[in-house]
């Protein structure tokens, strides 16, 4: 199971400052087990956002938000609600946010930080990779993770080493920033790139004490499983 935790409310509201109409999506896989997903969590977020004066155009829960084919089929009947929204708020791990961003032409904001792949049961092995770093900035990078897509983990733009869109480290590999640029261009949000991103907080990479107290973790500690 992939463990996630809520982004601090202040950080999330700051991210959503300019957004007026939001569509909420949630994964009913791992987040429910980590108490960061499920119907109650999503409706609670809806009322919080409405209190902030925002409109929630709809809520959609999908079993595995890391599967692009599944997302495509499940959003079809809900396209009007998605089209009416300025952006999408996603309750899932980094893989789910990346998969959602690849399918929906809107900025997809992470509502959660991904902490660890604590036992990867159920994880979909698609092309997306999550660094489980607890600092999710996928809304800024067009749903492409700069920590897994770029070997240098660059946060403020490409290095000068790319050649014809390929990485200096491996010519078979796409330049991660080329992908980020093209993804933001696709959704008409290139201006996001002008924002300065401060250094990542590496202290968040270790799971927090609270998460280390989850049921599975405790069972494992006690050598019961």
């Amino acid at each position: 199971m992939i463990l996630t935790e809520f982004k601090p409310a202040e950080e999330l509201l700051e991210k959503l400052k300019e957004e007026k109409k939001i569509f909420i999506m949630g994964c009913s896989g791992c987040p429910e087990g980590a108490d960061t997903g499920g119907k109650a969590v999503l409706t609670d977020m809806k009322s919080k956002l409405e209190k902030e004066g925002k409109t929630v155009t709809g809520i959609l829960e999908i079993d595995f938000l890391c599967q692009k084919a599944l997302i495509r089929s499940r959003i079809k009947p809900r396209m009007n609600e998605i089209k009416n929204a300025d952006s999408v708020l996603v309750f899932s791990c980094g893989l789910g946010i990346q998969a959602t961003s690849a399918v929906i032409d809107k900025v997809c904001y992470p509502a959660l930080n991904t902490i660890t792949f604590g036992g990867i049961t159920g994880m979909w092995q698609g092309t997306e990779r999550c660094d489980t770093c607890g600092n999710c900035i996928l809304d800024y990078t067009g749903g492409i993770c700069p920590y897994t897509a770029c070997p240098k983990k660059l946060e403020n733009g490409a290095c000068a080493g790319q050649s014809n869109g390929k990485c200096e480290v491996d010519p078979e590999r796409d330049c991660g920033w080329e992908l980020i640029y093209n993804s933001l261009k696709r959704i008409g949000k290139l201006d996001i790139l002008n924002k300065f991103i401060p250094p990542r907080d590496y202290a968040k990479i270790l799971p927090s004490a609270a998460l280390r107290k989850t049921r599975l973790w405790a069972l494992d500690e006690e050598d019961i499983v």
Partner: protein
Amino acid sequence: MESIKKSKFEKNLRSGKFAVTCEIGPPKGAEVEEIKEAAGYLKDVADGINVTDLQSSVMRLGSLTTCHLLKEWGLDPIFQVTCRDRNRLALQSDLLSAYVMGIRNVLALTGDYTTIGDHPQAEPVFDIDSVQLLWTIKNLEEGKDLAGKELTQKPSFFKGAVVNPGADTEASYELQIIKMKKKIDQGAQFFQTQAIFDAEVFKRFMERVHKENIDVPILAGIILLKSERMANYMNKFIPGVFVPEPLVKKMEGTMDKVSMCIEIASRLIEETKSYCAGVHIQALGWEKHIPAVVKNLK
């Protein structure tokens, strides 16, 4: 503590005089006679000397120590700092060390990846990127480290950064411009470009820079082309550098590589000088030919 506030390089660049910077690559080992000789050739022609930081990810003598030596020999060093080998603690510490040694010019870079060098097994650090490195320097200059703790004395630097005018896809070109503006926002006061071999490419880039209202001084990067073999090698292995076919042919067709090298570099400078604030010449061992390359400028 050295009391000099502004470096010679900063004063010359600000005066509007066409600037020349050159480069010294520290040796693999503890022998410094060769770089002392190279420094001798450059002393009267260069406003500032870049000292590379384990260039191409090859282990060498350090940039900081070499900058210190250049100062002792009467030159004005530009301390190249990459993010490949040091985390934010070590980077901040080395910047303070540089200031205490009287080094006033810094060039902030991301750095090549570890696997292209001679220690491909090494851990690539990249704790912060080049834009964040400039932001870090700005913090130090304001008297605070990245943890927000107060410093006993604020350092002060003339801060430079790098840009590639020859990025070959729409995304990479636009990202170069976006990142350049971010670097300026975070304190970059001058730019040195990735090596150019095509004056037209540089001219187009500078037109774009003007359109973006960027008025930070830019020094065009020039590499002395020593042979056709070197050109082919760079085209194949050096990220971001491209030598056009006609120049490769010119080198192939001559017996006198030195004269051809000087001719190519001088012409590039002649063709680009009206668009930029100066040139940054990388001689890669041919430092003694730089006076001939820049003789028409002085």
